[in-house]
């Protein structure tokens, strides 16, 4: 089974859009990524296209374009064929340990079928991720040494 990286996270398009348009747990989860340079957001072009379309539809084109510019600076890009589920395929290609999604189907049957025994990735709600995110122990596991605290301003 390929090793997953516990510091690599995929946020499905609903969570990426909710970060902007809802706040709450989605923003809290994304802030965990934005606050730590060693925590990586993995996303394909297809995944960002979905989120951008939702932000444009529920917000406006300028807001969606501004979001795309910022998220492009944050993400680690992966590629997968069009037609694959963008969040699951991004996690697989990027060997991410966590997928954040509001989609109940993704958290059960679809994810199990898609991953099978190929990848040790868990699908969580943003609430679940935010509650479990422990930067101290994660830093020790992936970087080694004492956790120095957040190294980025999540609002910059």
């Amino acid at each position, binding site marked *: 089974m390929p090793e997953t990286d516990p510091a690599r996270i995929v946020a499905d398009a609903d969570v990426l859009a909710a970060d*902007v348009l809802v706040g709450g747990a989605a923003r809290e989860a994304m802030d965990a990524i934005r606050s730590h340079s060693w925590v990586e957001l993995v996303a394909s072009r297809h995944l960002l296209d979905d989120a951008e379309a*939702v932000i444009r539809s529920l917000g406006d084109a300028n807001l969606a374009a501004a979001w795309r510019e910022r998220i492009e600076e944050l993400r680690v890009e992966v590629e997968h064929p069009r037609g694959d589920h963008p969040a699951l395929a991004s996690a697989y290609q990027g060997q991410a340990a966590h997928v954040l999604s509001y989609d109940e189907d993704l958290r059960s049957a679809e994810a199990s079928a898609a991953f099978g025994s190929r990848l040790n990735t868990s699908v969580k709600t943003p609430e679940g991720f935010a509650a479990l995110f422990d930067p101290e122990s994660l830093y020790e596991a992936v970087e080694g040494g004492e956790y120095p605290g957040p190294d980025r301003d999540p*609002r*910059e």
Partner: protein
Amino acid sequence: MHWGDLFERADEYRTDAATIRETLADRRATADEEDADA
């Protein structure tokens, strides 16, 4: 634009997760139909 400014701009469009899920599901369903037609 900083994230903080972007969130301030987005305040006027504040919505809920269910609406976002519905909008995303519509978009993905449309994309699946287009793939099937191609």
